[in-house]
């Protein structure tokens, strides 16, 4: 790892993120062909696109499941980290600039909703597919659920992409999700309660935006030289 950088995301976390992202964009593209009349006109072969969309969704869920199984230990720890909200997290969600851990509270909510939506996309997608031929699985609200998930997911995605690609203060996080590490200064500034295992840094405990430079512990500083 480069000096002055700290590992933020493990390989398992990054693979899970990108498998999820790739699957989502594939399903969004094929789903929009089914959903938007103008795209349906261009492509026309609805049955074929419908099959590609459905089996693409099945492949997406299987790929996610495979990543979770293969990286279970690491991802289980991540899940435990994400599901826990302390007082600072709750204050952060109420708009206060409280110190945050490796994931801020907004990232935790986004991850949790994304996981829940994946389950709901899967359930509603299978019901739509099976319900075409079997009335026992046909519900008038299935398509509303599937479409509603798409709209809410798109809103989350737009916010996510803005913060990851455009907003100057946060877009450095994209490096963490691609190569794994982020600048220590950035991490300290945005995630002061995070205590990485592999780097001993004197992280500030009292103030979030303290204008300080990271103080590497002696052992770590010597290792880095």
């Amino acid at each position, binding site marked *: 790892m480069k000096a002055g950088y700290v590992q933020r995301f493990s390989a398992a976390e990054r693979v899970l993120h990108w498998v999820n992202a790739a699957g989502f964009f594939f399903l969004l593209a094929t789903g929009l062909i089914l959903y938007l009349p*103008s795209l349906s006109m261009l492509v026309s072969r609805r049955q074929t696109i419908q099959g590609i969309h459905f089996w693409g969704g099945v492949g997406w869920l299987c790929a996610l499941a495979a990543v979770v199984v293969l990286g279970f230990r690491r991802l289980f720890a991540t899940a435990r980290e994400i599901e826990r909200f302390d007082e600072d997290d709750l204050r952060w969600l109420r708009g206060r600039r409280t110190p945050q851990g490796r994931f801020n509270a907004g990232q935790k909510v986004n991850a949790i909703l994304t996981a829940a939506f994946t389950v709901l996309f899967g359930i509603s997608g299978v019901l739509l597919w099976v319900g075409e*031929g079997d009335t026992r699985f046909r519900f008038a609200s299935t398509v509303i659920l599937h479409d509603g998930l798409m709209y809410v997911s798109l809103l989350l995605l737009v916010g996510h992409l803005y913060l990851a690609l455009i907003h100057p203060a946060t877009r450095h996080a994209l490096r963490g999700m691609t190569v794994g590490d982020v600048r220590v200064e950035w991490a300290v500034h945005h995630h002061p309660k995070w205590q990485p295992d592999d780097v001993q840094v004197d992280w500030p405990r009292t103030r979030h935006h303290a204008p300080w430079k990271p103080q590497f512990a002696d052992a770590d500083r010597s290792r880095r030289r």
Partner: protein
Amino acid sequence: MDTPPVTEQDPGPRRYGRRLFLATVVGGVSSLYWGKAAWDHVTGVVSPVAEAIAPIIPSSGWRIYTISGSMPTFDRATWRLKIGGLVDQPLSLTYDELRALPRVEQVSTFHCVTGWTVNNVHWGGVRMHDVLAAARPQDAGHALQFVSMEVPYVDYLTLGQASMHDVMLAYEMDGKPLKQEHGAPVRLVIPEMYGYKNVKWLQEIQVVPESIDGYWENLGYDRDAWVGRSNGYSS
């Protein structure tokens, strides 16, 4: 005596994330039972807002279903609507001749069997019974076969169903000539039945002895596709 200072005790991290995940999944799954009613209620309450934003929503609520690789195209010079079978006066109407028949308009809701609906669709066209009257069905004819240009799409209605007051052959939708994706030049409109009975890209109507299964009925859908009372739905 000094009162001991009151210290705010941090209860420590709590698993709110697990609760949020479970609540979202349970809420989503349960919406299979209440989602449509809630959606209908919301769109009814905020219909002015919905109408205002409708032009900027690209889907406008419609999904385009086809069964073949390409959509039929309408050639005004060669297209004919043939009405034949058990009739005394077989007809072959050009597009202009069809439009010369007594024109009617109606506003109705379009229901798809998969669950989506489009409210307040403004149709323009001719009444089915006016077309039938011109062809004069014979006594042996009790049903109609609707043949689409999209082969092999066909469907059937009984004469009684086809003679309901709001069944029409529509060549206009929302004030404009019917678009290709909606079945140009003319489609059947029967608001009381799900969309798969509303045959698009019509080219032929045959008077036949009885109603039998059409394209989607052969794939398991109900022959009498009453909205809310067929295909596993009950109002």
